[in-house]
């Protein structure tokens, strides 16, 4: 297997590069095996660490207790029943979802654009922009939350005076406030990816008279995709779970799940919220599994093998 002069895909060069034990055998080093074992063990441990509390959450959603979550008092489905009857919780969940998806889309779009365009801006602009990116992450949430609220209310009053239009706090204000932090997040992720990128492909494309647009879509974008997807996921998560900013800039009818959960503290967090968490988990995992299954079935039917036969493959491998 000879390596082509310009590698276009990792699998062209070293199809076995992901299989470390092969190398270990060849070199015969037990130390390599130990390191492998440690890597695997560490990873497994981290996943356990992440999911163990989740398991506890799910288990306690079946807790028959009447108030607090932390004492087990028998098995019961009553909290699931209560969640189904509780429109307040359902509304909160739906609101969280709506805000998080919109924020994630906006932030991913604008953050990626910013990361790409920043190189073409004058140096002074770049410095200020980078400083602002850091500041948006540095500002403690309570500070930005309160000042954004003051900003909203004073500007809405001004708009009312000048144009007679009455703007209100609501989904838009929450999404706008969330998007700030997330745009920075995505931008930093994509830039990190960008800086490690191999420019030769881009050069090759230009040499072959490719237009910038095509070059972008066929060469750059696929390479950036993991960073973009990572940014999207993190943005969604941050927005979905946010409390402080959401609390201050939300209006009537826009209570999100964290707001609702925090507010029940005074009365005691009941297993109802555990049930909601468990349902969320169920839906997410179902979507993942179903997605994976569909792709697998599709691959089987069309005879595709290798990288394309999984959601993961489609996301990470380069197209074309």
């Amino acid at each position: 297997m000879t390596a082509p002069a310009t590698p276009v895909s990792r699998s062209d060069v070293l199809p076995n590069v992901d299989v470390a034990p092969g190398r270990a055998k060849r070199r015969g080093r037990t130390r390599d095996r130990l390191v492998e074992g440690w890597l695997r063990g560490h990873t497994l441990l981290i996943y356990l660490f992440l999911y163990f509390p989740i398991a506890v959450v799910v288990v306690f959603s079946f807790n028959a207790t009447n108030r607090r979550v932390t004492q087990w008092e028998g098995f019961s489905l009553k909290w699931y029943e209560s969640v189904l009857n509780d429109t307040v919780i359902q509304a909160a969940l739906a609101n969280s979802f709506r805000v998080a998806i919109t924020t994630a889309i906006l932030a991913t779009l604008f953050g990626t654009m910013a990361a790409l365009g920043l190189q073409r801006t004058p140096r002074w602009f770049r410095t200020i922009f980078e400083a602002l990116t850091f500041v948006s992450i540095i500002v403690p949430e309570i500070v930005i939350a309160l000042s954004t609220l003051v900003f909203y209310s004073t500007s809405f009053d001004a708009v009312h005076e000048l144009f007679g239009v009455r703007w209100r706090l609501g989904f838009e204000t929450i999404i706008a406030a969330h998007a700030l932090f997330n745009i920075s997040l995505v931008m930093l992720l994509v830039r990190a990816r960008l800086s490690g990128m191999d420019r030769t492909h881009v050069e090759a494309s230009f040499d072959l008279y490719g237009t910038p647009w095509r070059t972008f879509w066929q060469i750059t974008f696929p390479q950036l995709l993991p960073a973009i997807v990572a940014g999207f996921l993190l943005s969604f998560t941050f927005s979905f779970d946010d409390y402080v900013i959401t609390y201050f800039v939300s209006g009537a009818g826009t209570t999100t799940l964290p707001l609702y959960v925090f507010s029940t503290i005074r009365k005691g967090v009941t297993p109802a919220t555990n049930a909601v968490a468990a349902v969320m988990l169920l839906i997410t995992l179902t979507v993942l599994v179903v997605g994976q299954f569909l792709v697998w079935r599709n691959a089987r039917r069309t005879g595709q093998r290798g990288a394309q036969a999984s959601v993961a493959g489609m996301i990470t491998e380069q197209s074309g």
Partner: protein
Amino acid sequence: MGTMAEAAPQTPARPRRSYGSLTGLLVVPASLWYLVLLVVPLLIVVVMSFGEKSRLGGYQPAFTLDNYIDALDPQRVSPFITSLAMAVSGTILCLLAALPIAYFIATRGGRRKSLLILLLIVPFWTSFLIRTYAWLTILGPDGLGGFIGTLIGDSSFRILGTPFAVLLGIVYAYLPLMVFPIYVTMERMDRTLIEASKDLGASRWGTFRQVTLPITATGLITGSILVFIPLMGEYVVPAILGYGRVFLIGNQLVLQFLESRNWPEGSARAVVLIAIMLVTVIFYVWFVNRGRRTREVSVL
């Protein structure tokens, strides 16, 4: 390879030059966002920091430096020190936890790479408060805390309410923020470089240090910034898992903005904090990046 990349910016012959300014416009939406939702609110904070607390709480227009004098009072600086210690240790722990897993998924993940990454973040789509309360059960007297207590025969042994519990909660909450940037840079790393390094006789550790680390440096920097900075403002995890025994800047700010409703003093404190952190971060980024060739080539 290297020469081609370096030669690129100097070649004006391609039509893409005329797209340069258009590309620059891509930053407009993000810039607008920063201007309206960051700069303006921050200006409000700065203005408030020179004001006075109105009798009923909140802000009253005035011009005074009292708030800054209070904020810089060396006697009340202990929350800052505690926060710093917490943030630094939390970041280091996250780094240690995240590096191996990011490396593993990036290099050994194969087809299931994205699934593995997704599975890392799925737990975070359940409410943060619920998960933290789950830790209360796990580490509490009915769980690990009580178990270890009986094991060592000390009935007043406690995991919760200690810095250990707080750090555990912090790593739990911030891990994805560290893993994702590192993964994203590692995954793009050209594996041939590692092959070459090993073929030239470098040890595994040597390869890691001289090839892997520099290439993924940007990811490491991004990850540490994304963890360290918000950690300085953290207050919920120390409040719940630390039983409030660990009093951080975040707690102090919340106390001033919400309980005392002394916005001018809180604002002054926030401004000082932001200034210190901004300087630190810029210094950190510059320090790590010096000596690395900055890539000026644009991809569009």
